[in-house]
């Protein structure tokens, strides 16, 4: 007869008292700092004034959401946010994987660690510094234009061109994060059994075949988990990099939901409006995450839950 849950729990507790104790602070952290604040999401449906507080502010139902949906820029904001995220995903997601695979093949230890250090370093540079550099280099007289003219092109103000904005944004993100992102893949690679490689070599498989049949399937669980999590943050493009890089000339491709809300929020200090938009974002993200997880379960053995 299977024991009831409480009996099993008690038994397990007695045996692993210390482990439970260890996890208590973590649980508390989540309860206090992640779950309890969700109560504040209510202000998305209210007309919130700080002095009245969350409880006493009047209800306005879906007014804040409607205001957002009816905004002239709603379509453009969604389009820019989604496109920028998708570009980041399509180009930025494979980059660390490719780098990890390449690093894995390097024989010389010295060269390998030198390359790793060089690629990790940009991750630690503050965003403000990176965008400052980008803005300087993109000037008509700046470094990027020097390179362009060297290859026979014409000088132009790169960050004023809406067509170039996404490329600059994504390329600089890749440059900054590819090294750091490859760490997790490198560690997954080290977990692939080397005997498999030997067996494959004996069977006559070349480097490319080995990669397709051993390496990639070996790190597939890691890739799928990372991909699922990335999809879950698709709509969450942060505003910091955007507001540092954009200007009115590039609003049409650069202005995303969070940067628009930042401008609106700063001028109005409209907490309810920004919360409503944030909630909208989160709901979309959650839906995407559920879909991604379902697909991962269907097509592979790994999934987030």
């Amino acid at each position, binding site marked *: 007869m299977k024991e009831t849950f409480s009996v099993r729990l008690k038994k397990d507790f007695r045996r692993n008292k210390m482990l439970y104790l260890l996890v208590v602070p973590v649980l508390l952290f989540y309860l206090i700092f992640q779950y309890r604040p969700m109560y504040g999401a209510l202000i998305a449906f209210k007309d919130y004034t*700080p002095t009245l507080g969350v409880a006493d502010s009047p209800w306005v139902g879906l007014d804040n959401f409607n205001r957002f949906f009816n905004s002239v820029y709603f379509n453009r904001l969604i389009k820019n946010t989604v496109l920028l995220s998708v570009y980041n995903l399509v180009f930025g997601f494979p980059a660390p994987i490719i780098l990890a695979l390449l690093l894995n093949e390097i024989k010389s230890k010295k060269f390998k660690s030198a390359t790793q250090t060089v690629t990790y370093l940009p991750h630690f540079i503050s965003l403000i510094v990176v965008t400052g550099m980008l803005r300087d280099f993109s000037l008509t007289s700046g470094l990027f234009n020097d390179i362009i003219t060297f290859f026979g092109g014409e000088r132009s*103000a790169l960050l004023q061109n809406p067509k170039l904005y996404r490329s600059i944004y994504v390329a600089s993100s890749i440059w900054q994060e590819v090294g750091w992102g490859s760490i997790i893949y490198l560690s997954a690679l080290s977990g692939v059994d080397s005997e498999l490689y030997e067996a494959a070599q004996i069977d006559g498989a070349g480097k490319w075949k080995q990669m397709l049949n051993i390496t990639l399937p070996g790190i597939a669980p890691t890739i799928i988990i990372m991909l699922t999590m990335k999809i879950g943050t698709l709509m969450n493009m942060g505003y910091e990099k955007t507001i540092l890089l954009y200007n009115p000339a590039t609003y049409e491709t650069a202005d995303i939901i969070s940067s628009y809300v930042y401008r609106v929020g700063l001028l*109005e200090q409209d907490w309810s409006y920004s919360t409503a938009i944030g909630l909208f974002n989160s709901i979309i993200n959650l839906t995407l995450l559920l879909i991604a997880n379902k697909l991962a379960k269907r097509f592979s053995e790994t999934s987030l839950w």
Partner: protein
Amino acid sequence: MKKKFVSLLTATAVIATSLAGCGQGGGSQETTKAPETQAPAQSTESGGAAQSAEFAYPMAAGAKLTYWAPLNDNVSANYSNLGDTFFGKALMAQTGVDIEFMHPPLNQQVEQFSLILADGNLPDLMEYDWLPLYPGGPEKAITDGVILPLNDIIEQYCPNLSKYLAENPDIDRMIQTDEGTYYCFPFIRGDGKLCNTIGPMMRKDWLDELGLEVPTTIDEWHTVLTAFKEQKGATAPFTYEQDREQLRDTDPFAYAYNTTRTFYLGSDGKVHYGAAEPEFKDYLATMAQWYKEGLIDADLATLSVDQVSAKMTSGTAGASVGWAGSRLGAWTKAAQATNPDYELVATPYPTTQKGAYPEFGQIENQYSGRASVAITTSCKDVERAARMLDYAYGEDGHFLYNFGVEGESYNMVDGYPAYTDLILDNPDGLPISQAMAAYIRGCYNGPFVQDLRYLEQYYTLQNQKDTPDIWGASNGKAHVVPPITPTTEESKEYSTIMNEVRTYRDEMILKFIFGTESIDNFDTYIANMEKMGLSRALEIQNAALARYNAR
């Protein structure tokens, strides 16, 4: 054993470093010299009838007041708290009130302000841009229960302020709400000349070299900028900081066409939105033409103050728009170190016709709503707070806020308060702005009336001293919108509309100037702004204006 010790040490060091971030960030603390014992100010004779004649500063010992205010960066360079400055100490000694100053991190006053409100633990006094920044306006701040209405308080405890307002009825009108409520102790620019601080400027040494006169019309500007480009090799003859809203809105070339990018008061006494008027099309056409010819900086949209400063001082640019102090003065001083011939001159606001008097020019209202102090509903000793603030509007307080401590930071020379070398030529090598900020508030803002004589001495270079006359020569005062507020019901609608209009306007202006959008589409541009509700916004503004005029 040694291994354990090393690892223990490393662990402690790591924990200590991670906790370092928890400490208060702040400017370096300069060891302040012990303040000389202040001779207590003479009792301010009250002029108001409802005032007991026995009241005198400094007040008897009493409750400590908490005072929240943004810390100006000229102060924070050397002090982390206003109470540590000579000014702060003198204020407390002269009024007899102990004040605990609290400051938000630099440039984060808006965010911190909201957090304080949400928290509910309000300090006694809050210095903030109540008029422009409190959502819904100052009347809402009162109805929300954040600050106290001050009418009775001013009548009972503030003879100095009452007297000043009685003598200056137009200022009196500016600082009330539409309903006639006083809500703050205001920052007032005491003289009209203090209100035009921004204007166009260009390289005088280049003009002399090329044999050109200072331009006064758009055509003359065109000639000068072309000469700068072709004969002086300036790749960006005209440049300025696009990312600063204040400078964008005071574009001198828009003024030349009798319009502006934002709201202005028309000659018909109504509020207009310059960016939607037909004259604006002419302005844009000229700018697009200049941009095509390479007379305007190609990177216009991405410029910030560092890049503009670098261009202006190095000779890549020849003309710009900016403040007399932090741009004209700063650039002249910096560039003259390596190029002694470098000279900047302030140019008058241009017009389209030779000899015409500029109809528009930059000018601010004497009361802009900035840096004014309100008494919050958490204040227990309202009388004490009010009297402490009222000190600034009396004679002794006026001198303290504008000139500092007599004998230390200024001396009366033939009836004129002249700053001492401690300010003008600081022995520790501090720039004037920082030396001043340690002793006075006149060099930035606060709850007092700013004195013109501070500016006369702050501008040390002749080209700076000329600026109020050159830039003030316009009819701009007639076109600046007075400090009006929409009603609390309308303000949300107004901000929704204006957010979209502003975004659209900023985008389209650049598109027109860069040539990506043809000027022929100007009418579509206006139609789009109408669709966003521009007329409704103008309606709200005009209603607010009518209420203001009826005050």
